[in-house]
């Protein structure tokens, strides 16, 4: 089961290592982790996407809550949040294939942000599953490099995770 955790933390030195250390120490795997400051000064928000059964997620939430700099932990409910990931893909691109790749990017609503003689760089910001679709579509041309930010997520509607 894949789940998304939204964690508010105090902006202190070492907080990220405390959290990532907790995962590795207890044998839990992280699929992606994204961190950035929030609208409250000194509070950062960490979004973690990970895999595990119900027991693992529950333990994880409780163990995260025990860390002193952790202010709040929320498991986002499937289907009730919006998630996005930014990805930059450098694709091998002979001149003859350029139009084809541009067309694919257009269909997916991705942007071409850089062009060189033998490659193009595509920028895409979407939920993880659409990001994976784009990667699959571009694979046949030869992907040289991928950079992903990790997923960030926010509740739909009026629900929120705040201090």
């Amino acid at each position, binding site marked *: 089961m894949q789940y998304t955790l939204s964690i508010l*933390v105090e902006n202190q*030195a*070492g907080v990220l*290592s405390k959290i990532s*250390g907790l995962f590795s120490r207890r044998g839990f795997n992280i699929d992606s982790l994204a961190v950035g400051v929030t609208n409250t000064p000194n509070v950062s928000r960490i979004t973690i996407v990970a895999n595990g059964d119900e027991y693992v997620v529950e333990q994880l939430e*409780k163990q995260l809550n025990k860390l002193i*700099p952790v202010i709040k932990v929320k498991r986002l409910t499937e289907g009730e949040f919006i998630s996005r990931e930014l990805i930059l893909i450098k694709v091998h691109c002979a001149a003859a294939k350029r139009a084809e790749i541009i067309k694919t990017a257009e269909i997916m609503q991705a942007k071409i942000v850089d062009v060189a003689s033998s490659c193009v760089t595509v920028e895409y910001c979407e939920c993880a599953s659409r990001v994976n679709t784009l990667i699959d579509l571009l694979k046949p041309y030869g992907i040289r490099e991928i950079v992903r930010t990790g997923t960030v997520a926010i509740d739909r509607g009026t629900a929120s995770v705040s201090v």
Partner: protein
Amino acid sequence: MISGAEIMVKCLEAEGVSVVFGYPGATICPFYDKIYDSSMKDVLVRQEQNAAHAASGYARCSGRPGVCVATSGPGATNLITGIATAYMDSIPMVAITGQVRSDLLGRDVFQEADITGACEPFVKHSYLVSKTEDLPRIFKEAFHIASTGRQGPVLIDIPMDIQTNEIEEFVYPDSVNIIGYKPNTKGHAVQVKRAVEAIKKSKRPLIVSGGGVLSSGVKPKFQNFAIKTRIPVISTMMGIGVMPSDNELYLGMLGTHGKAVANRVLHEADLVIVCGARLGDRAVAAPDQMSNNTTVIHIDIDPAEIGKNVKTEIPIVGDMRNVLKMLAENIGDYTVPEQWQQTVNAWKKDLYKTPPVFDGFVEPRTLMSHLSAMFRSKAILVADVGQNQIWCANNFRIREGRFLTTGGMGTMGYSIPAAVGAKFARPDRDVIAVCGDGSFQMGMNELATIAGNNLNIKIIIMKNTRLGMVRELQDKNYGGRHSATILQGDPDFLGIARAYGIDCAQASSNDEAESIIKGIVNSDKPFILVCNVYPDTPSI
């Protein structure tokens, strides 16, 4: 103007700390220099790990966080095992380490170690101080975090320049406000009502007491609750002493090394009230030890413990003190069904068996069962780790005193330094440390601390020239191949005691051992008794 080191001392004084256990070094010298002028007692241990164990013994007997101090680098890394022990055993502790100058951090200078990084899995929280101004807030927070919620060790790592820098004035904060740390102590009223309903409905209820009952300081209230409701009690290793051993409701320690009676009652019970225990693998090794139909009520201050090891129907997060009060108020005049009381009473008769005696040796289980009566009723017994721990846990008859051991971490060498801490906390009480010849050799450097401070601690060494517990494991699971478990080169322990100026004797029978002990209980000096134990004596 006031220096960081002076502030550290003032913070400790403001927290009511009267004794610190430690070992100095260059980077903690500014602090030691200021201790020199203070009313605080600094106890010089002989290895940093023992400073943490002593702080643990002190904390458990005083009910306040123990304080240990070490220098940077090896001093700090030596502390780790002691800190980890306190973490697993949920003991309130503040560990202070010196660190190299802030501007040298990360440059691998002499005696530099990333101790906050190294200790991360073993502390409740840690600080690497970056400004002298932050010291009062950090000390206030550290003592608060260590002593509230689920207690545990907090590490404060203080670079040397932070200790020597001066600031305008010292103001100790009145309160703390840590946004992410607000432990729930209250206990949920609805859950308590559900628990009481379940207890009233059950035919065979049982209480499992853990260390949490002792750390919340509610032993008398807990005993009242059990006695009033007549619910039988078993305990985890950390919970030993919650009930007097000879109370008719008490059926001993559970688990792989526990009493058969305790495990039997756990299996037969239809409702188990777990009080401040995490039920680790040594307590409930196989989930089928408990019947599938058993209703579990789990009371714990740490929500992460509930449902972690045992499936729980009624979770109650809160401090035992509050939850027990609520339970007592709600349960009214309830007492357990007559039939269950009779069953349990009948089993209680099987609790203690007389083990066979081997000529020319002390039978350690028999000695343990007689030991309590020879000392005053509030005696503190500190058991080390190994067979000696099990002999003590299962046979020492606690009256009004304490049983200290490391049930969580199981750190060999704990008993002697922890006894030092216990004695500093309770100089008025008899303090006895029991260890094996293996564990004694891990803690014996503290004989100097005992001798130097003339601490009235009685040490009993169970000498079987074996690492008995591992030897037993090898006999059971490894075809009796005693790999590295025969203690060759054991020293003359009496000679060692004499070298430290500590009185000593040895015994080769229980009569001899008991007559020696009777002769020394009233002395105010330390004593070491070496008991020759038959090498194949089993743990249980």
